[in-house]
Each structure stands twice: as C-alpha cells, then as structure tokens.
C-alpha cells in the first residue's frame, strides 16, 4: 500500500482549497444572477446591488417576451429654414429609419445601423406613452416661441418641464421624455442639415407605427390595422452643427441614399 507523503497531503490541501474557492465564485455568480433577473421590486433589499451591477451585468432577456414585439417603428423628419429674402421654407418628410434600413446584402446579418433609429423610435414612443393624455397633447405642440424680433427661439426647457408636470405626480416620466426629446432635437438637426445641405432653424419628427395582421387574419389580403402616425411639434434646431459631425452624417447619407430619394411626402 502506498503511503501518503507530505507532498501528497499538500497537493490534496491545495486542490481542496481551490475547489472551495471555485464553488464560492460560482455561488456568488448564481446569487448575483438571481438578483439581476428578479423582476424589479421583487428584491427591494438588493436594489442597491442591482443598481451598482447593472451596467455590466444587465440580464434582460425579454426581447420576445412575454409577448413578441408586433409593431414596426419608423421616424420621419422635417426641417424648416429661412430664405435670403426672409421667406420661410419647409422640407418634405425624410425617412430617417428607411435610410438606415437601405442597406445591401440581403440574407446576411443586418448592419448595426438598422437598429439605431428603430430602437430610438421605440424608446421615444414608450416614454411618450408614459405621459397622460394632456401631457401627450402638449408634446405634440411647438416648443418654439417668438423672440419678439421677427424670429423664433427655443422655449426654456425648465418652463416646459414645469408646465408638463404641473398638477401631475409623474415629473420623473416628464424628465425621461424630455431627455429623449432633447436628444432627438440634436440628432434631427444634424441629420437634416447634412441631408438638405443647408442650415436649418426648426425641425420636427413623426413616429409611424405599422403592424402585420393578427395571426387569425394572417391570410387576409386586406390590412387589418391602420398605421399610427404621431407628429410632434416643431422644435428649435441646434444653433450649430460641427463640421466633423455633419461630415459623418453626410457620409452615411451618401452611401445609403445618394439620390436623396427618401424625401417621401410633400407638405
């Protein structure tokens, strides 16, 4: 019979400790995973930990759950400017999402650009729907006012937030919406400036939602649902667009829509 040596015992101890360490790491991983996948509010005691871990450890596996996404989201944008003679001009609607979907190479993976405005529109729409009906109506009005000198200027965002929240208990929803609205203002200014090749002074956008027939009507020739189009009010364009930013937008536009064919509907 082989006698256990001191070296063997040391090896056994190292192996045992290594296994204990491995199991401890695995248990910690399972614990963190359980906390991260728990529905919000289910584990209030762990909310701090969830918040700290979330950017690196988000575990949302609900793209097609509980129900499959049924709607398609499209953003169209429009811009206005003043001519040299002082006349006000407005562009036609431009299909921003259509441009990002105008890639070649069917059958392969979609380039990431196809996700950008589609997901942005979804987020904007979700935050819009979190507001009540009065607030939604407000967001569909203009956020521009006269500057008292034959021109226009952006309304104070703090005043807009106050007016939207007045008498309501959902100021956080208002702020969440205005944050994305502000982002859209920048994005649409950049995009329309590059697309139209001119400075613009006001912009607006609309979100169009389409959906296929329900499963029960899948073979019907007629469209079951009418498209939902929500047009938001005019916003003041950003004052300046940096040349390098405009060049990056222009590069994408030139490659995906060189003929500027996505100007869809006249005003």
């Amino acid at each position, binding site marked *: 019979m082989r006698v256990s040596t001191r070296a063997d015992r040391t090896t056994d101890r190292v192996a045992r400790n290594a*296994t204990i360490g491995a199991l401890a790491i695995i248990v910690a991983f399972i614990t963190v995973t359980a906390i991260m996948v728990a529905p919000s509010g289910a584990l209030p005691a762990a909310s701090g930990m969830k918040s700290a871990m979330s950017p690196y450890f988000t*575990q949302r596996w609900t793209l097609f759950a509980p129900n*499959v996404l049924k709607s*398609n989201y499209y953003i169209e944008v429009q811009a206005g400017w003043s001519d040299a003679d002082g006349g006000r001009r407005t562009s036609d609607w431009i299909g921003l999402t259509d441009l990002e979907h105008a890639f070649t190479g*069917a059958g392969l993976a979609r380039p*990431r650009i196809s*996700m950008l405005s589609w997901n942005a529109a979804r987020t904007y729409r979700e935050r819009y729907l979190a507001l009540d009906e009065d607030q939604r109506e407000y967001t569909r009005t203009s956020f521009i006012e006269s500057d008292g000198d034959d021109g226009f200027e952006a309304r104070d965002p703090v005043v807009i937030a106050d007016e939207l929240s007045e008498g309501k208990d959902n100021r956080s929803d208002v702020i969440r919406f205005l944050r994305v609205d502000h982002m859209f203002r920048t994005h649409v200014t950049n995009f329309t400036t590059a697309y139209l090749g001119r400075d613009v002074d006001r912009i607006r956008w609309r979100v169009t939602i389409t959906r296929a027939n329900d499963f029960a009507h899948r073979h019907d020739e007629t469209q079951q649902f009418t498209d939902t189009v929500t047009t938001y009010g005019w916003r003041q364009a950003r004052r300046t667009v940096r040349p390098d930013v405009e060049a990056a937008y222009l590069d994408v536009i030139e490659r995906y829509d060189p003929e500027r064919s996505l100007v869809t509907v006249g005003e």
Partner: protein
Amino acid sequence: MATTTTRLAPGPSLRPADVWPRLVTWFTGGPRVLYGASLLRIFAGAALLIQFVPSFFDRHYLWGVASTWLDPLVNLNGYWAIFDVLFPKGDPTLFDASYVVFLLLVVAFTLGWRTAWVTPIMWFFLMSLQTNATFLTNGGDNLLRIVLPFMVFMRLSAHLSLDARRVRRRGARAGTRVPLWLSSTAHNTGAVICGIQIIAVYVVSGLWKLQGDDWLNGSALYYALNLETYRVLPGLSDLAWQVTPFVFAVTFLSVWVQVAFPVMLLWRPSRVFALLFLMGMHTGIAILLGLWPFSLVMIGLDMLFVRDTTFAWMLRKARRFVTRLRPATGAPRTVAS
C-alpha cells in the same frame, strides 16, 4: 422455473463523502470541455466579426463623433471612465486606430492566436466601443459582455487554433507555466459559470414567455417573422409562417425546451434533444431574422454542454468518412479484362 434478475449497474454514489473527492478531481484534475470552449471562442469571434466588420464604414455615425447626441443616455449608464480612453468621440484618428486594432484582436481571438493575452484586451476594446452608444446592442452583445470576463480564465484555444498548432510544433516549451491544478480550476470554473449563464438565459426567457399569450397560443413565431426590421429574407420568412404546423411546433417547443433546459441536461437523450433543438432554433433565428451575432454566441455557449469524448467521437467519425471519400493512393489498378 428459473428466474433471472437484471441488476442495474450502480450509478455514482451521491453520498457527500463520495461526491466531494469527485468534485475536487473534476475541478482540479484537468481542464474539461476543451472542444466546447474552443468552439465557443470561434463562434463568439465570428459573432463579433459579423457585427463589426459590416459596420466599419458606419463607425463614426454609430459610435464616433456623430453619436454625441446619444450622450445624455449613455452618461446615465455610469460606466467606468477608463472605457472612454480608447474610442474618444472627439479624436477620429485615435478612434479609427482603435477600431482597426479591435478588429485585428477579434481576428486573432477567432483564430486562437495568443488567446490568453488577446481575450482580456479584446474584451476591454469591446466594452470601450459599446459604451460609446446606446440603442445598438441586443441580447447577444449583452450575453457576450457578461461571459467574456470569465472566458479570460478558460483555455479557449486547446483545439482548432494557432496556439494549439504552436504547442504541437514546439512541444512542452510552448505550454503554460501555470500549475495544472490552478489552470484547471480557473478553466473549469469559467466553463461552469458560462454554463450557468446560458441556463439562466433560457429559463428566465422561457418563464417570461409563459406569461405571454402569443407563446401559449402558438402564434409567436408568426409575429417575429413579420417584423420588418428582422425580415432579411422576406420570401423565406413568408414561406415559413405560412406553414401553420411549423409555426405552432416551433413556438411551443422553443418555450418548453427553454424552461425545461436544466432538467433536460440531466439525462443524455433529453440533453441531446434539447441541444440539437436549441442549436437548430438559433440557426433559424440567424437565417430568418438576421440575428447572426446573437445566435452564434448562444450556439457557442450550448457547445459547453457537449463532452469532449462526444466531440472526439464525432471527429473520428468525420475523419473515417473523409478517408473513405478520398481516392486510395498507391493501390493497384484493376484492369477490366
């Protein structure tokens, strides 16, 4: 009348005193699932290449200077400032250089070249790029971001890699100096964590689906195939949803196999069925919905549940098949008389 009694072969004892030594041996006695880990590397690398090579020309629009409009949301995520270093939105030269280096790292990772060093560096580049934007990631990106730090500790290049070829050529000199118990424990722990992660994805996703009508009434696949942004092959998508039994079968099976996945792993036949179904499902998602990066990461992680002995058996079969196909050289010619 004589009776015969069939005795079942005794399974492994589940007494703690017996389980513990087996556990210690499993973790420290050598790296497991090396074929699965190598395939995970290749699939994850392919997923990154499919994602970032076609986006090369859109890089400034998506993650660079033109993506500053996303900053109000990006800044809320609270990522570490160190991730801002490599892909600055205000420095296109450094941004471009980092993008090219990142692609080269992904190629090196996929080919299994210096994998132990390349993996953590590639992870840092990936995080740095992805944290520049929002609205651009999907489940596959999220999954890879979670498992890559653990893959750093795994032996991802034991097979089908330049590292493996170098080891074969140079012998032990090219091997690692890390003690076997340490490298084995690190690798096996990483593999177990990756396995737990994919189980979590399946179970959580399946449980959420069980709360939705579309999955319970069997129509979910129809709706997924009719989302414009995922219709990369519209003709094929339309063909698929018009076969109603196919829609029902795939919808039901995908929910129940996901929910039952951890239990199905315990018995070999059900494990084989679950893995084949899920790999087939993800291949379908890749082809029909164009979600190649997501599907490849999922299939790569599924591979961790296939034993090395099974891969070795499949390789032997494949080699025999190839040998049979190959014309015999040096064999005497038969001349018809």
